[in-house]
């Protein structure tokens, strides 16, 4: 088990969301059905490395890099 930031994943990597740093970020992600403990897969990275897109529970979520840094995942 390796813990790192969501922003550090590479395309195709799968991981489990272990913690989300701020309550604000938790709410923003839970609105889209993304919770701690859910599995995610990094599907796309925009040119210049920002934003990124992850697939969680069948929803594609795009996040700016600075926001993805608040999400910790286990691989």
């Amino acid at each position, binding site marked *: 088990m390796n813990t790192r930031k969501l922003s550090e994943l590479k395309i195709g990597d799968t991981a489990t969301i272990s913690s989300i740093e*701020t*309550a*604000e*970020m*938790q*709410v*923003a*992600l*839970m*609105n*889209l*059905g993304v*919770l701690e403990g859910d599995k995610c897969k990094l*599907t*796309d990275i*925009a*040119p*210049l*490395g*920002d*934003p990124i*897109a992850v*697939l969680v*529970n*069948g*929803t*594609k*979520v*795009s*996040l*700016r890099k600075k*926001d993805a840094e608040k999400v910790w995942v286990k691989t």
Partner: protein
Amino acid sequence: MKIALVGNPNCGKSSLFNVLTGLNQKVGNYPGVTVDRKSGEMNKGTNYASVIIDLPGIYSLYPASEDEQIACDIIRNPKHEDHADVWVVVADATQLRRSLLLCTQMIDMQLPVVLAVNMMDLIENPDQYFNFQKLSAKLDIPVVPISARTKKGIDTLKSVLSKAITPSRTRILKIPEGLQPVIAQSKVLMNTEKEYPAYQALITPDDFLYLPEETREKIKALSPLMASKELVANEMLVRYDRIDLFLEDSLRTVTTQAEKRTLILDKILLHPLWGYFIFLGILFLIFQMLFSVAEFPMNFIEMVFGKAGEAIGKILPEGSMFSHFITDGVLAGIAGIVVFVPQIAFLFLFISVLEETGYMSRVVFLMDRIMRPFGFSGRSVIPLIGGMACAVPSIMMARTIPNPKERLITILVTPLMSCSARLPVYVLLTALFVPDIKVLGGIGNLKGVVMLGLYIMGFVMALLVAFVLKKMMKYQSDGIFVSEMPLYRKPRWQNVGITIWKKTRTFLIETGKIILVISVVLWGLKSFAPGNQFEKIHQKYEQLAQNPANNPDSLEMEKSSELLKASYAGVIGKSMEPLIRPLGYDWKIGIALLTSFAAREVFTGTMGMIYGMSESVEVEDDEQRKTLTERISKEYPPAVAFSLLIFYAFAMQCMSTLAVTKRETGSWSWTIFMLVYLTVLAYGAAFIAYRVALMI
């Protein structure tokens, strides 16, 4: 009866709204904000006639944007005029778990709720996945599986809605006993019997905008520590725990063909290289459509109005002030509005197809990082490119930008993009000072290079101004940018058609009013003169006409030239002279500037009229253009033409753009700000251009 549709964005809520109401829709604005208010009638003319209100999409009752705030206000405020008798929560069958977050909140609000599970057509063998009867029993509300696309289940939904709906007796969120005293006080302040809204107000008092500020402050003071995002996050966690229990024998999320297709398509459409190629291709197509294809219907509209003017002119008493007013004032004003319809329709055709298919959120994904430093959204690309054809529909388009700051910046700089109406002016003026020299080994022409330079200059200026505006407007934090990229799907043409129809109608009615008033005013300035100046000119030319040596046609033209000079427009043009002298302009150009405030393409016509040519100078007509070019170049040095060109590239000379800006920003101050900054910019740039050109 009033029925409101609530649901997540992309859950097919608008499709359901269209299916239920057909074309019996009304679109307006919520007061003070640029959020569409969509309402319509169902079962019109029957005993079951009801009003359907399509609320802006929300994920939960804790709003994160202006649209969501409006929807939440309506749900929370029992006195709001759109507060409904029955609430249909529209859920996405493939995302049932997430959709139920909002549904459980609506249940706790103690409102009469019906759950419509949409997109059932995407799921094969639904019985295998869902047990709606059980879900309905657990939630204590009617649950109806539907498909807005195939219209399956719509009749069942309608029949459920025709019966009385009572609020659910279940409570999903259990509020701790210890909080009851505070909740009780909050209830009193809010004048409600309901526990959950009173709790919401305690944890997010600032979102309760419908309450007077005084009440909000009192609620906040009840238990200041409760106002925190942590409690919102906790509530959502509790809800998801309960939802997972509700769905224990249903599937929480379903992997569909659409999802697999989306993953493959995104590999291509979001590819660092191909993704941009395809996007550029799409932009090129939009640009072509706006620029060249829309020209045919536009010419047709101009022709029809021209003929109609002639026909009406014949019916009405010839030469009377009234017929003059109808044909040149009112009819010309209406023509100036209607002529934009093809471009608006085309732009919204493309935009709504991009939105419908889900591609628009990919545009944002591709462009976000590139556009962000300038204060734009990824979505700003489309309005900016559209601005090269026409700023009017492009500014209307900016409405799809969620962040208010980014939207405002986009609206304010879009007029800097060189629109198609500037083209005839560019053609005329470049001919005055740019020599006819072949460049690039004979492929290009220097005039073409200058023209391209003008387009680039407009674009660069738009970026610069946006950057400055971004620095100036520090009032809003950038916040979190987390958004959903919906699955790709086929556009629903009914939705596309309705969007085009609604946008065009809004433009014709709302913007049309302002345009009509301004054109009538400008007509008045051209058609009246102080004192009896006009009579004197008429008398003079009547005498001249007695002399058979004079050509009646050229007399007529000289006469209109003199009339224009004597009119109020002429007077203002002359009094403007000291002001525009530094740019190298005289009062004749002053008149042209004044009249082309209505629309910049009027410049050529006005200059033609001043020089005693017929008013309908066609730049496309080589012969006429040459004559006008010669006459102007006799009087003005090339430096003036250059300065004018720069002036026209930046100046705000389009009342339609101002009218649509007023409508979209909802503020006269921003509209006036736009007019002022563009005028100052144009004046300054033209001044520099003139001085530099004189030195060369």
